[in-house]
């Protein structure tokens, strides 16, 4: 019924079934996307909340597991030698017990083993031992008296050629139900956290505005047609297209305060500065205006400049595209009325660009807030440039406290949500 309807482009009667089929097809086509996005983006996002409430260190990721070492000693020389088959078992974790520990092994041919431990049983060549619970750091040693036969020596096989198989259930720190608020307590209690939050905001606001303003200027430069414009446009996109590691290290070298730093050498040669400026390593320079003491944050300004430098191409591209879609008639009419170039820019171009500038501000603001690579590579978060994102890394991997790192990540996400709400509340509706 449904198929005939579809084939004949049926009347509205069959539309219900047809629509159902269509939406089923649509969901099927979207399924792979849903799966991967759920698994790699939304799942981890929720998992991050989970981890932030858990007392988990980096080392805990290696779950407790039983480890065994198997040996036949001393080394048998001739048939009839009496030796010892030895298993040494150990719980790798010093914190967690392992339950239901068992050992299964296939013994080599041609040896006669005497079992002297009632936890073990031998069925033919198959050895099976059940140790029950192995406490934290506990060790177990089994020593079976063994007589070696000729068949063993002939086979040239070794006892350890078949690896013993171990089983055991250790509590997985990720899936257990122990929770704590210590992570959040720790990060909110430290003075540093509020500095980090402030630095994040400065970096985001000034980095975003810087990139937008530079982009606006660059777009003005390239808005008129001239020879070589496409070359320049390509060139202006370089900072954005090149890998972050390449440009970040180039900047580090350029701004180096030690011998070999290009910019410092240049400034000193031209007599602009006396000594080298530590662009990326100096926290602040004090200065006074009308008797008021201020501090100029050097390293933070440098990373903000880098951010503006690296991302102005993106806003430049969008603004240029928007400017070229403004009809030239308006400018011609304004020209007739005697409007000067600056007046034209102020009254014609800028109002037309407000929409794209707002969208760009929103996007860049969020992306700059999310940015980790740039600061991490330039300063590693030193000298007053530690933002929230760098703090996530520091807590989780430098201090090795995954839980605290996840807690900072939760803060990152929460701040982001607040921004998003503010933006959607106050942004004009037509700027999708």
């Amino acid at each position, binding site marked *: 019924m449904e198929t005939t309807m579809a084939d004949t482009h049926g009347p509205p009667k069959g539309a219900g079934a047809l629509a159902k089929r*269509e*939406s089923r*097809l*649509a969901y099927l*086509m*979207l399924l792979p*996307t849903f799966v991967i996005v759920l698994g790699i983006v*939304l*799942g*981890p*996002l929720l*998992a*991050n909340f989970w*981890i932030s409430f858990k007392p988990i260190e980096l080392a805990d*990721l290696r779950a407790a597991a039983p480890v065994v070492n198997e040996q036949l000693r001393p080394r048998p020389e001739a048939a009839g030698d009496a030796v010892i088959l030895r298993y040494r078992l150990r719980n790798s974790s010093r914190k967690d017990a392992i339950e239901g520990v068992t050992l299964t092994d296939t013994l080599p041919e041609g040896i006669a083993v005497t079992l002297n431990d009632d936890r073990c049983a031998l069925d033919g060549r198959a050895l099976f031992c059940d140790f029950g619970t192995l406490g934290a750091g506990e060790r177990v040693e089994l020593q079976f008296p063994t007589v070696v036969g000729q068949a063993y020596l002939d086979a040239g096989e070794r006892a350890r050629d078949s690896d013993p198989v171990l089983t055991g259930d250790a509590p*997985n720190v990720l899936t257990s139900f122990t929770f704590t608020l210590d992570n959040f307590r720790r990060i909110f209690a430290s003075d540093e956290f509020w500095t980090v939050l402030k630095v994040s905001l400065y970096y985001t606001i000034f980095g975003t505005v810087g990139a937008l303003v530079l982009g606006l*200027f*660059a777009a003005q*430069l390239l808005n008129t047609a001239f020879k070589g414009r496409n070359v320049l446009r*390509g*060139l*202006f*996109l*370089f*900072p954005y*297209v*090149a*890998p*972050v*590691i*390449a440009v970040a*290290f*180039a900047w580090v*070298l*350029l701004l180096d305060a030690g011998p*070999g730093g*290009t910019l410092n*050498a240049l400034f000193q*040669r*031209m007599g602009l500065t006396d000594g080298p400026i530590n662009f990326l390593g100096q926290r602040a320079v004090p200065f006074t205006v009308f008797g008021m003491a201020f501090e100029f944050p050097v390293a933070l300004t440098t990373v903000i400049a880098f951010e503006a*430098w690296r991302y102005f191409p993106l806003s430049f*591209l*969008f603004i240029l595209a928007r400017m070229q879609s403004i009809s030239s008639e308006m400018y011609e009419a304004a020209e007739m009325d005697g409007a*000067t*170039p600056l007046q034209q820019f102020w009254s014609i171009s800028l109002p037309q660009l407000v929409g*794209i500038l707002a*969208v760009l501000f929103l996007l860049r603001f969020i992306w700059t807030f*999310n940015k*980790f690579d740039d600061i991490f*590579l330039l300063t590693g978060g030193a000298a007053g440039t530690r933002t929230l*994102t760098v703090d996530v*890394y520091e807590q989780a*991997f430098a201090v090795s406290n*995954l839980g605290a790192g*996840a807690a900072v*990540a939760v803060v*990152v996400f929460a701040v982001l949500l607040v921004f*998003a709400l503010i933006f959607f509340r106050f942004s004009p509706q*037509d700027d*999708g």
Partner: protein
Amino acid sequence: MTALLTALVAGGLWGAVWMVVVGLLLMLVSGAVAAPPVGMALLAGAVAGAAWLATPREARTRARLALHGAGVALVLMLLTFAAPFGLPLEAVPLQQGVALVVFAAFVAVSLARCLDGYAIEPMGRYGFEVLLLRVLKGLGFVVFTIVVVLPFYVMVMTSLKSQQSLLSNPLDFSVDLSQGAASLFRSYIELFTDFHFGTFLMNTALVSVVTVFVTLAFAIPGAYAVARLKFPGQAFLSRSILLIYMVPAIVLVIPLYAVFSQMGLRNTLTGLMIVYPATTIPVALYMLQGYFRGLPAELEEAGLMDGLSRAGVIWKVTLPLALPALASVSLYVFMIAWNEFLFAFMFLDDLDLFTLSRGVVSLNSSEVPRQHLMAGAVVATVPVLVLFLWFERFLVGGLTAGSVKG
């Protein structure tokens, strides 16, 4: 009077700017320790500005411009007592001569461009603003170009130098071509022989290409469904898919690190090939669905009428029409995967598995000389820049298509 004053200021500005730029270039190229006399250049430029303004409009020919340039050079020589770049003339005379000619020519041409149509007469607000904007634009070109190019220039030149010569004179980027290619490119050769950069390059290429294909395989059907099929939640999806792109990678890193560690996926390229597509699919889907919407639906309907299946229509009708969009998306995704740093840095421990990003970071230690670090940066940059320049049209289209609409 304002015209004369503006011409003086414009001339002074150009004189000073070109002195800084040309003096800088002279230092970088020749390695000589110059001290560009910016003040004197400013003065020479101001004189040149006034002189050109005083030249009658009809007399402003090419020959006159050349003469004017010669005048600029002469004035600078006089003002600096025959040391135009703060150097005695005997030091690197050839480079100094070229630099002087370049300086004079640039000042003369810049001024001629800015003052075109102006003379010593009242200019009004309109005229003043046009002149001001010309000067500002000119300066903008110079400043933007220098600021964009300088880090890349330092990167390439440093990779060709040796540690000692860098430390003894950090401004000397002159390249000694007489030493032969093997010595000149020593850092690069060592990277590929001793530092496994061949492996890194292959790993990066593999991960990037796989990411592109997986992304396309996932995003094409999804984008088609969102663009063409009606289903509950369609409008919501087409709007909210980009929100995924707003989720910070750093928030995902800890859970993914923990789970991938336990699943044995962490220190593998497979792990990266799962994570990268997941982060690029939402953008790719968004970009593609926008393009699919713009394609005429009649062609697809005709295909369906002719007995093609949905998959057949997508494969035979939609995709060939959407080739430019596919190219844009592929390039964009390739670029993201190639340049990705965070996950590569967190996930990869084994040298055999390093991507270029991870490999270059491992060069950032005090034991590895700087030219190796910069050579590594060049190796990571060149493929993606070449690809970008080759397909710039597509990439720019892709970058803007995503969000310029609306």
